[in-house]
Every structure is written in structure tokens, then in C-alpha cells.
């Protein structure tokens, strides 16, 4: 009598796991950095990236072009950051308990120069859309077309949002200096 483990992964599941493992090894840290820039919260960023990879693994069978997977992951992280932003806004309006255990790591600020700290702080104060566009453009190095696809907006909107974001950031830095 042969024993069959009903929970043993199928060949397709093994292939998905292998592919996602490779993506995880290559891109996890960059995605966490992207999520931190969008949320200011390392712990939340790790959650978002984890969820993104988990979602990708579930949907791997429907991914036609594996090279597009990193775009899918970025979009999932951005959408997750937006959802967390909305949730935080709601929590702030109807605060029930303190959420004291999140935020940037305690030594994060210590590792930045004053100049860089000022720019990052200025970026944090920008409206969400402007912040997303600038982070994707100047951190992730994405083209206008890629940003447009990730954020589901037109290329023109990407261009104008980036310009307005840079203007606002420049003004904020001048006011602070």
C-alpha cells in the first residue's frame, strides 16, 4: 500500500513557489523600502510586502508574463499603502485604542543627514498622490508610463503630479531652511 500525502504540493504549486521564491529573494527589500516611503511604518511595510507576495503566489497560475510580476507586486504594495492610509484616517476619526507600537524604527532618523532628513520629511508632508509619484519616479526609477500603469492614472497626470510635487517639496524645503 502506498501512502499519499493529500497535502503534498502539486507540480504547479511547486513551480509557483519556486518562482515567487526567486522574486522574493531579489525584490523583497526594495519593495519594503518603497512601502516605508509610502507609509512611514516599517512594520506595516513588511506586512504589505508579505501580503503582496502571498497574493502573487495565489494568483501565479493566472500570471501570463512572469516578467510583469514585479509590476504586479509594486501595484499591490501601493494599493495596500493607500488602504492603510484610509484605515488610519478612519481610526483617527474614531480612535478607540492607542496604536503605540508602530512608526519608523527608532534609529531611522539617526542614520540620515540633516539635509536628507529634511527632504524625507518634506516628502512625508506632500499629498498622498504626489508622494506616490515622486517615490516611484525617484526611488523606484520607474518611467512615466510605468507609474501611470501602477497608479491607474494617465501619463499626463503622472507628469503634472510630479511637477506639482517637486514644486511643493522645493517650497517646503525653502520655508524650513
Amino acid at each position, binding site marked *: 500500500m502506498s501512502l499519499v500525502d493529500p497535502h503534498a504540493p502539486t507540480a504547479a504549486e511547486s513551480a509557483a513557489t519556486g518562482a515567487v521564491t526567486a522574486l522574493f529573494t531579489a525584490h523583497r527589500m526594495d519593495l519594503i523600502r518603497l512601502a516605508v516611503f509610502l507609509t512611514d511604518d516599517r512594520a506595516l511595510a513588511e506586512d504589505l510586502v508579505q501580503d503582496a507576495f*502571498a497574493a502573487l*503566489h495565489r494568483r501565479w497560475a493566472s500570471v501570463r508574463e512572469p516578467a510583469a510580476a514585479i509590476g504586479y507586486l509594486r501595484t499591490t504594495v501601493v494599493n495596500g499603502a493607500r488602504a492603510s492610509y484610509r484605515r488610519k484616517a478612519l481610526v483617527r476619526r474614531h480612535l478607540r485604542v*492607542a496604536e503605540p507600537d508602530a512608526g519608523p524604527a527608532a534609529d531611522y532618523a539617526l542614520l540620515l543627514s540633516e539635509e536628507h532628513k529634511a527632504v524625507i520629511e518634506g516628502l512625508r508632508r506632500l499629498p498622498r498622490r504626489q508622494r506616490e509619484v515622486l517615490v516611484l519616479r525617484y*526611488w523606484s526609477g520607474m518611467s512615466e508610463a510605468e507609474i501611470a500603469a501602477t497608479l491607474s492614472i494617465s501619463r499626463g497626470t503622472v507628469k503634472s503630479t510630479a511637477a506639482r510635487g517637486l514644486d511643493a517639496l522645493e517650497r517646503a524645503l525653502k520655508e524650513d531652511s
Partner: protein
Amino acid sequence: MSTEIEQRLTEALAAGADAITRSNTSEPTMTDWQPPRTVDRRTDHRRRTPFLLVAAAATIVGAVAALAVFVRPDASRPAAPHHTSTLPSPAPSTSRTAAPNPQPRVVNGIHAPTCVARQTDPVSHVLKQVLTSGVGGSYDFAGLPILSVTTDGDVLAGTVGSKFNPGRLDLIRPNGSRTTLYRASDVPLDSNQNVGVSAAQGDKRWIVFAVSVMQGQGDVVRLGLVDRRSGVVTVFRTLPAFSSTIILPPVLYDGRPYWTEVYSAGTDSVFTYDAVSRRIERLSSGSQLGAPAAIGGGLYWQRDGRVVAYRHGTLPAGFPSSLVKFPPLAGDGKTTVWTTTADPNGRLHVLLELGQAGMATALTLVDSTTADTIVPLAVAGPYVFWNGGTSFTMLDTRTGATAKVGFSDPFSTIAAGGGTLAVNQIGSKGGARLSVARITDLPELTC
């Protein structure tokens, strides 16, 4: 050609990314990725280390997030790799490894859910009644969430406000009269920051509260005490906003506030404040201290994953005693309900348990394998209320009958104390309606 601001931004983001890499979290130790069968997401973010990816169903993620900490013996330790071929190790865990069934349905005359009550939404029914009876009431206090109900039945509610209209702590009596006890106008704020009262507990004489500044996430920056006899408010602990010290929500026990402070250096402390001598006393220090909790007439906190009794009461039979932090719980001093997990045969069960002094075993009220969120909300006389993820449920422990409470917004709340039931219903546009009723007005649920 890039402009100067583009160059500055690019450099700052590169430096920021580098700082994120070097800041106080570690890289995952694994070199491979495999989807485990259960979600393992820690809730202790303050010393968070990266945890491994999970590919459990998305519906499980939120529900188990709050519970998964139970199966971790030490949240400060890097997560160990999981493998699909073996389940996550449940060792030093209080989650059950044996099948939870069969369970007794009645213990010491207390009934677990056995049937659906004939009454439909008795809470809403009673709340409608009190509008005309003059006992209790329903008030449109937009954005005024309940924090708790004092031991003599008054409702404590807190608001969040801006620099120009700071948040406050209000006391609302069952007749609807409202008194502002504290306004957070002494907290220095930037124009884009909010401040509010985020936690409060009270007895007949004292009310302890926590003030949080919010910009992204909330940081407790003040702890205060209200003397209800004199109306004097004393802010006895002050932190600068975005300090690296974290204050966990305080509790009021035997007329004194108790709280835990978490320091980035790694040693935490539990304190109490004596309003007579106006002194803060350090009660305990350690590397892993949890927030104090009043359970069964005693005061407990967790240290290095074990329960420490500061004042002995009676921990209910079956109450988890070796967790990193206490599970979500609610109680009235006599009865405690809490959530826990069991993983017989690798299948995750989320349990809602009830315990009292004198009970040999805990009574399982809910045993869910659908990984719905179960959050204990209140114990009010013979009634137990919990949030089952998609609906609020009330149980009459005299009969075992359950009824759905007709609202399920995740930010709606139910709290009880001193014979008062308070319900905060969040409307679709964000408005809040606070309703107050006497528990004695609630009907006995029958099947």
C-alpha cells in the same frame, strides 16, 4: 537633465533606503520561500524582525493577525522558517494541540451558545425603548467613541482634534448629560498633527486616561488622572511626541493607574502613580514586559512570556499563561472571556473562552474554523458580547440563546460597566451615535 530638487530628492531617497536597510530590523534568515499553512503575523512591532511570507488564504490574514501572536513564544526572536511539509511548531504555546471537541456546553450553570434566540436584535430594541422611557438614551455625539464604562455606569468617551480644537475626554451619564473632564490643549503640536484621548478607565473616584499625538500612527504622550470628587486633573507622565519610549495603554486597578513603558534600549518597566504622594513608583523591570491587565480581581502583566501576578486574584482555569502578551479579553471582574487558538491536526481553530473563579475548565463559547475575527467586547451581567468579524453577537449565559446585534461596522463598539451598556454605532458617513441603556432592561434571551 535633472533639476536641483530632483537631485536632492534622489539622493535623499537613496540615503533613506539605505537607512531603512540598516535600521534596527534584521534581514530574514531564510534563503528560500515556502508558503506555510497558517498565517504567522506578529503584533509586537516595537522589536519587530522580518517574518516570513505566508500564502494562507486572504480571508485568514486579518483574522489570525490578532491571534497569531499566541503561538509565538518570543516576539523578539527572528522568525524561524516555515515549511509546507511541517506545521509551524506550537511549542511553548498555550494554543491547544488536541482537538477541542467534545466540549461541555454548560459549566457551573453558565450556558455556551446552544440556539438562536427568538428575539431579534434585543439591543437595538431596548435602545429604541429607552428613547421613550427616559431611562438611558441615544445621543448624536459625532466622532465620540466610547473608551470604557466606569464601574458606576458612566461612559467615558474620547475625541481626536487638531492643534486649534484639541481632543478631549468626556464623561457621559446615562441621562445624556455630558461633562468634559480634560482637553488636550497642553500638548504642543504641529499644524498637521492631531491629538486625542485614546484610552481611559474609571471607577467611582478616579479616571486614568492616555493622550496620543497622531501623525501616521499614535504615540501616547501624556498620562493623566481625574479625581472625580474634586474634578482636579493631574497629568503625571509626559513624553515628547515621537519619543522612542512607548507607553502601553494604562489600567486603573484599586484606585491607582498602572502602565508599562517600553524603551528602545531593551529594558521595559511597569509603573504606578500614587495620587496622594504624587510619586511614580517603578514596580518591575525586564526585557519583555507587557501591559498590565486586571483579571479576576487581580493585577497581572507578562514578563518574558510568563504571567506575573502583582496582586493575586483568580486567573480563570484555562487562561493562557505563557504568551508574549495577553489575548484580547473582556470581563466584569467576575467573568472573563478571551480568545485563543487551537491547531489540532494542523487546522486552525479560533476559540472564544469563558472563565470564572471556581470553574475547573474554561467554557468554549465559539469554536470557529473559518478564521473569522472574534473580539470579546463586554461582559454585562449574564450577557456576553463579541464581534465575530461580520456581526456582533450577544449570548445570554442563562439560557445559551444568542442573538445578532444589528450593526457590524468594525469601529462600532459595545462597552459595559456598573449596570450600564453603552453602544457606539458608526454611521456610513462617519458620524457616531452613542446609545446607553441599563443592562436590567435587556430581555432574557430564549429559544
